[in-house]
């Protein structure tokens, strides 16, 4: 069964039509990515799925429509969002940020300690910094924290919004490696939003290209990597 099915999703911000009827699906166990230029509507798509902005159309999570459900309830069911711009709380310590990983996800409470240790295995740097204010972490560390916090909630579907934004190439590689690992080792289904199309397509089972609020292209990650249009527009090749 598909973990997530989105049909005809539409979002307006006042007069601006940010999404004009977007449909796609995320099969269980896969990494699906959504690529597109600035302002294409990627973040809006994730927010609409999370119940964080008003939308039309249907979103089905585990086959159930999520219409009208508040974000915290969706988080409670395992739909966990690591928002754009890292979305950590700079005024809280690293540990406190991680503790909020289970704030809406009661089923993950019992495994908190174990999941915490798992996260520290993935990101040893975080463990050394648990008492530090999250705002004093480097950009890469903040992104690690955002992912670690999401994992502590035991996601069934992980929404990642531009996890590689603004990071140095080695850190980007590390983050993408981790995404692949959590998908393989923990069977976490991932919906990945990226502008770094090349890296995203490389690790994705399937991908969609979003262009000004509409899906313009879709296909297997490897196929899109070789698609002429994608190469020209999103991979910067000529």
């Amino acid at each position, binding site marked *: 069964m598909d973990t997530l099915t989105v049909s005809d999703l539409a979002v307006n911000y006042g007069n601006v039509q940010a999404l004009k009827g977007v449909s796609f699906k995320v099969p269980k166990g896969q990494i699906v990515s959504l690529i597109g230029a600035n302002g294409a509507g990627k973040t809006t798509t994730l*927010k609409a799925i*999370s119940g*964080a902005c008003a939308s039309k159309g249907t979103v089905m999570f585990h086959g159930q429509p999520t219409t009208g459900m*508040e*974000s*915290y309830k969706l*988080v*409670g069911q395992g739909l*966990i*969002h690591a*928002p754009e711009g890292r*979305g950590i*709380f*700079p*005024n*809280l310590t690293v540990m*406190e940020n991680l*503790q*909020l*990983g289970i*704030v*809406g*996800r009661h089923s993950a409470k019992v495994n908190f300690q174990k999941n915490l240790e798992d996260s520290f295995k993935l990101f040893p740097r975080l463990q050394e910094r648990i008492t530090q204010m999250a705002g004093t972490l480097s950009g890469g560390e903040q992104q690690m924290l955002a992912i670690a*916090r*999401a994992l502590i*909630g035991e996601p069934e579907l992980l929404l990642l919004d531009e996890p590689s934004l603004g990071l140095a190439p080695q850190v980007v590689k590390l983050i993408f490696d981790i995404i692949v690992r959590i998908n393989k080792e923990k069977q976490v289904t991932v919906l990945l939003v990226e502008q770094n199309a090349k890296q995203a397509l490389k690790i994705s089972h399937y991908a969609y290209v979003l262009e000004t609020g509409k899906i313009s292209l879709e296909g297997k990650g490897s196929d899109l990597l070789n698609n002429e249009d994608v190469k020209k527009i999103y991979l910067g090749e000529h």
Partner: protein
Amino acid sequence: MNDFIQHTINGLALGSIYALVALGYTMVFGVLQLINFAHGEIFMMGAFSGLYFARYALPAGTQPSIGVTLMVVVAAMIGSAVLGVIIEKFAYRPLRKAPRINILITAIGVSLLLQYGGQLIFGASPQFFPTILPRQNIDLGGDIFLDTNQITIFLLSFVLMVILQYLVFKTQFGRSMRAISHSLETANVIGINVNKVIFITFIIGSALAGAAGVLYGVAYPKIDPLLGLLPGLKAFIAAVLGGIGNITGAVIGAVLLGLSETYVAGYISSTYRDALAFVILILVLLLRPGGILGSKKIEKV
């Protein structure tokens, strides 16, 4: 010198009452970026809940005692908390996504409604707050006195602030509250039940103001429905002085304000006492709009 010590004791007691009220302003501001102008009336509600509880709920002939005082304080905290959450649920929650100015005007409207509604319900003329605490002056020598009321103020506000400190810094509620004060949107998306946290914030902030209402009633036993106006404004100024949104700042600002008011009244003239808070407000806004501990991020309201 002895004068100075006496003024300091009095100033600290006044400052502690301001602090309990200022905490509510600052906590609500933290989660909603809203100055809850009705907070002074929530404080007033505490004084009246305490008064009516003492007058009607206690058996006739109850003697003043610490136990009675505590019961009255708890009743007042409940009364204020109930009013606080009613305001939150019916006045502010429907406006969660409305422009800031609408919420601000609503806050002022609720404040006025409660001031005049209070006159309708409690009567406009002042009532005497019952004696619930055995009044005794303890002579510390050299003409310095500490009265039982002041001791109660110190102990009670200390205990309440320790509990608050625990809630804010050691519990999931407190983490959520601080997360919301950074970004409500992010807090919501990562699974914090934002409405519930805001609701609890109002309960706690209002209950603290309710306790302050009783302490105020014991110290200045003539109370009327406009009672919240001046202490409310001063506690708000204290919160701004300390850095609005900052919990430690609210306490520091309140103590500084209580002390300076008492010194001004004692050494210069009590006519200037009430004006002082406004002078401080203007100075803070001109010189350090973020307040003593506040962040640099300011927004005009």
